[in-house]
């Protein structure tokens, strides 16, 4: 080997080493970055369990809130309120969402389809607090009072785009042959959709609905000036203000009282478990299919 070639080889070695080193550094940064991303998840969980778990007892689920300084008391009305609000929202969200999804998937030859899909997509990016303002203008200003209904409508608006898109996705997974078989039997198109396509896709649609429920159940922003919150039971008076877990967490966490901080952490733990269970069940249900 000539000296020239040797020298070239040496340069090659140095270069190869620096490339190997940068490769290792990059791998290190990527692994570290991933750890940093996951850190808050564990930190939030740890905090909620450490601070909130001790305040969760039977009273928490069965009693009404009490003034600061008094013993006992719970957040039963907020838990029930959240369920009522989400149920109200679902009436709006499921009707418009599933209907819209059927239109996008089953009438895809219609000229309106791309435009409505675009509107649904853009709608899904509208901030939750803006939907609260809309419901405030539509319902609270018109009726003159904060109410469960206005909160339900705000949350319903947020559910619609999520349900529309998931319904469209699952309906498109139903094989064309299934529809053709129905049509071949002489069924009209609407019967094919209602009696064959929808039942086949039901699992997926339910998953979409649950994911949207999990999403809106934790929203506080749109409820600040619609459902508004209260300290009492409100189950049947849907035209009155109603309490909700996210509102309670927001108010209690920002308060100066140690007791309320603990209750806020407990409420947050309950809320996050509710949300995660819903998400988890929805995901497991989809994976099975």
């Amino acid at each position, binding site marked *: 080997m000539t000296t020239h070639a040797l020298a070239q080889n040496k340069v090659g070695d140095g270069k190869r080493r620096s490339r190997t080193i940068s490769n290792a550094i990059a791998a290190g940064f990527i692994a570290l970055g991933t750890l940093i*991303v996951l850190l808050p998840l564990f*930190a939030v969980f740890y905090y909620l369990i450490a601070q909130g778990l001790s305040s969760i007892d039977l009273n928490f689920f069965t009693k009404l809130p009490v003034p600061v300084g008094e013993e006992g008391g719970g957040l039963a009305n907020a838990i029930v309120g959240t369920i009522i609000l989400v149920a109200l929202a679902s009436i709006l969200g499921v009707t418009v969402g599933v209907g819209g999804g059927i239109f996008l998937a089953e009438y895809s030859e219609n000229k309106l389809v791309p435009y409505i899909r675009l509107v649904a997509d853009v709608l899904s*990016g509208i901030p939750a607090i803006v939907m609260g303002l*809309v419901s405030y203008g539509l319902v609270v200003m018109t009726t003159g009072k904060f109410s469960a209904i206005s909160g339900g409508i705000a949350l319903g608006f947020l559910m619609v785009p999520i349900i529309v898109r998931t319904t469209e996705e699952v309906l498109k997974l139903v094989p064309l042959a299934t529809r053709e078989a129905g049509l071949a039997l002489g069924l009209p198109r609407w019967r094919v959709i209602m009696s064959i396509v929808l039942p086949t896709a039901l699992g997926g649609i339910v998953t979409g609905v649950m994911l949207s429920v999990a999403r809106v159940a934790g929203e506080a922003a749109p409820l600040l000036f619609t459902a508004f919150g209260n300290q009492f039971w409100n189950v049947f008076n849907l035209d009155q203000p109603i309490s909700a877990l996210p509102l309670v967490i927001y108010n209690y966490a920002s308060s100066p009282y140690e007791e309320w901080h603990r209750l*806020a952490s407990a409420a947050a733990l309950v809320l996050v478990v509710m949300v995660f269970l819903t998400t988890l069940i929805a995901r497991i249900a989809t994976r099975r299919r």
Partner: protein
Amino acid sequence: MIKSARPAPSSRGDGIFKGIIIFIALCIVAIFGLSMYELYTSGKDAFSTFGFFGFIGSSIWDPVAQRFGAWTFIAGTALTSVLALVIAVPLALASAIFVTEYAPRWLSEPVSYLVELLAAIPSVIYGLWAIFVLVPIVRNLQLSVLLNPNLREIDLIQVTAPSGLGLLTAVLILAVMVIPYTASVARDVIRLVPQEQREAAYALGATKWEVIRTAILPYARAGIMGGVILSLGRALGETIAVTMVIGNTTQVPKSIFDSTATMASVIANQFGEASGLQLSSLIGLGFLLFLLSVVVNFTARIIIARLTPEGIKV
């Protein structure tokens, strides 16, 4: 979907059903239109009193003098969102590259799932955690800046009141909240990079990092960009967690520790006690936020939709 099938024998039921379904689908458009109309009419007073550009351009927010301008909050929103993305994007990319290129299957799925769980935690819970964990950390940081004569002089990190509340805290919590959105889009587009692209680079003797840098990231760039813009949309409208830690003052921040407000946070914070022109100005802010998120989301969707015939679901 039925397009390719032979048309079914038409019946009156079909016509009625189609009519109902189209009506429901048009409700989606109606929700959009109604929202825009509602926000505009309720915010009109602010626009007509100060003029549209006068409202946007003024940074005076004075309920006593009944003068309201949006500029402070537009600046606050832009600052928090952009800074949050500066932190979030590299981390989100790292996690997306990790699950697609590095992690074995048994690790990749749980990690993807955990990153998605980050998106499932409600905003108010991030806010609560930020108040009790992040705020004390930032407060200590502020104190150490105050005690250090060299750092004290730097304009960008000047501390006025070491409360722990302010721009930096809001940016940090916002970054955590948008990471899952950027990460999930990045993961999906990186998975779309053809295997041949990787193999070709490996065949040329590239190391793993070189494959990622020269073959994968450039290919996925447009999609990642779409994901980043989508996350920007989320960050712009994020309300509760930011309201809880940003300090809620109506000043344009001069240092990263200053307290300030965003469009969303000032609405959440002041709506309760507002009336008249102030209420209208807050709804006007909501109208601006609405327009802004429409533009941002529209742009992101177009970028993402161009990549694949089906688009990537977010």
